Each structure stands twice: as C-alpha cells, then as structure tokens.
C-alpha cells in the first residue's frame, strides 16, 4: 500500500513539473494593478502639500528653505505603498510605479528629494508656482540683491537646519 502511495506521489510530482521561478536571474513581471514605490515627477509638482498631509505614515516631508525654495522629501522607510499620495495629488505628479526591487544596505537610498521653486504673490505674500519655466525666468522679484556687500538677501526668515532628516534614528532602550 505504501509503495503504491509513494508511486502516486511520484506521478503527481512528475505531472506538476518544475514550478520554481528562475527569479533573480530572470525578471519577474508584476500584476497589472501592483503598486510599487511612488515616483515623484518634479516637473508637475506644485508644492501644494496634499500628499504630505495625507500620507498615513508621514513619509513625505515638506519644508521651506526660504520664501522661494520649497523642499519635498520622500523618505520611503515606512512607506506602505498605499497610494494615497498618488490619489490625492491634484497635478498627478506621483505615480505608483511597478518598482519593488528596493532591497538596499542603506535606508537613505530610497529617499527622493525635490526642490521646488516657489514665487511670492505680490498681494497676499503666499507662495505659488508659475505655470511655466519661462515665467519663472521672467520673474525677477524673488530675491533682493545686497549690492553693497555682494550677497543675496532672501525675504523670509525661515531656513533649513543642515542636519539630514533620514539618519536621525537614535538608539535608545527602556
């Protein structure tokens, strides 16, 4: 009886053939609706901050270097690939790519940093982005030059601390 069952097992195994994927040697396609790592398109982004507000993992940081430069930083360490940022983006600047091969030995490798150029509304003083690069070039009022001392003076007071945001984890135990 046991010999028969072994024979049956062998037949089943032979019928199934070889199922192991030749994975790292040969690329493996992902399903159509698979969500991989979000990719930020810096040309489309207007710096509205919708993605940063909606990210459940708080993985998108937005800060202003000065009145004119806004930095959008995606850290990616605890990103759940949920796609909420891509859903909420009004400019469709975020695409959920099919990229999943993100194994790395340094967590900083996954980050994306976009430097956005913002200009100031002459009336209300808030930042906005001009539609085209040409208009950005035409706009000259974004900084004042201190001609006497040969330096730039930005209008705003806020500026960035130089410390990196990514490797900020300190080891501590209870």
């Amino acid at each position, binding site marked *: 009886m046991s010999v028969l069952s072994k024979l049956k097992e062998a037949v089943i195994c032979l019928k199934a053939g070889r*199922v*192991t*994927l030749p*994975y*790292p040697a040969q690329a493996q396609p*992902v399903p159509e609706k*698979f969500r991989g*790592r979000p990719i*930020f398109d*810096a*040309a489309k*982004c207007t710096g509205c901050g919708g993605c940063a507000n909606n990210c*459940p*993992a*708080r993985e998108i940081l937005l800060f202003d*270097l*000065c009145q004119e*430069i806004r930095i959008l930083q995606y*850290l*990616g*360490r*605890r*990103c*759940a*690939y*949920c796609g909420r940022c891509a859903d909420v983006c009004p400019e469709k600047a975020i695409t959920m790519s099919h990229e*999943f*091969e*993100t*194994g*790395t*030995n*340094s*967590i900083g*490798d*996954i*980050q*994306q*940093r*976009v*430097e956005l*150029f913002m200009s100031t509304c002459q009336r209300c003083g808030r930042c906005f982005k001009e539609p085209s690069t040409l208009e*950005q070039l035409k706009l000259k009022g974004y900084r004042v030059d*201190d001609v006497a001392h*040969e*330096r*730039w*003076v*930005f*209008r*705003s*007071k806020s*500026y*960035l601390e*130089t410390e990196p945001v990514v490797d900020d*984890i*300190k*080891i501590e*135990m*209870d």
Partner: protein
Amino acid sequence: MLKNLCQKMFGRSLWVYHANSGGCNGCDIEVLNVLTPYYDVERFGIKLVGSPRHADVMLCQGPAMRSTAQALKRAYDAMPAPKLVFAIGSCACGGGIWFDSYSVLGPVEKVVPVNFYIPGCPPRPEAIIYGVAVAVGLVDKKTAPVKFKQIEMPIPRYHPQDLSGRDELVVYEKVEKV
C-alpha cells in the same frame, strides 16, 4: 566592502532565523512564501532554523515594540557572530504605519543593528529574494537617492548650505562672481 565581507564570511549559505517582534503577520506570510517550492530559496542555500543560536541571519519583521524589544535584543545577542540582520517590511525599516502609537518604539534599528533593508508592506516574495541576493552578492542594488531641482538658480550659483540666518533676514554668504 560589506558585500565582499558577506561573501567571505557566509559562504553563500545563510541560515536564517525568523523573528517577528510585533508585525501584522503579512511579512511572515511572505517570508514563508519565499521558502515554498515556488520561490524555493533553498537553491541559494538559505535554510530556516528554529533557534537564534544556529542562525547567521535574523529576519526582523515588525517594529520594535515596548513589549518585545528586550526579547529581540536577547535573540540578537544569542546569535553567534558573524551575524547579519535583515529588516523586512516597512515596520522593521521605519516603524510602520503605527510608528507614533504608544506601544511602538520605532524601527528595529533602535534595538539591533540592521545590515539590509527590504521595504514594502509587505514586500513581494521577489523583493525579499532580491534583498537577500543583494546581500550575498548575486545582483547589484538598484536604488539610489533621487534628487531633483525644479530650477537651477541663475548666476551666481545657489547652494542651500551657504544660507545663514542673520537677525531679521536669511542671507546668502558666498557669491561666486562670474
């Protein structure tokens, strides 16, 4: 350099110990998936062992929690050197979606040193195999930090690190003359 060291030390046959310190089980299922005949990670010599004392590699899933951090630390200490730690899933890499809840201390990095990161929630089995293949030197890693500037400032050139605060204003110290 780490890669060379890995190849020398581990001889391409890793015995892995699977430690879940408070994940949702999604990553565990993917790791078990990797061990099935379909992905068959034993062709790289990778074998799951039940005790950290037999293991070369610890696969960490889930964040370091208030209740499990000590146990995780003890499991790490029990492993014989040389040892590697893989953080699998976004919980282990960065603390996960619940990174700010009262019971979560943060990424496993806070408790044990992590050598390789495989983000994803959960990562695909292929992504885990890829991460392991990167570690043993079968493939090269594909990711690199991306930086993009929407506009290059007109001359003189602009470097954010040269900005400094001065009472009421932020000034740019170094001006490169044309």
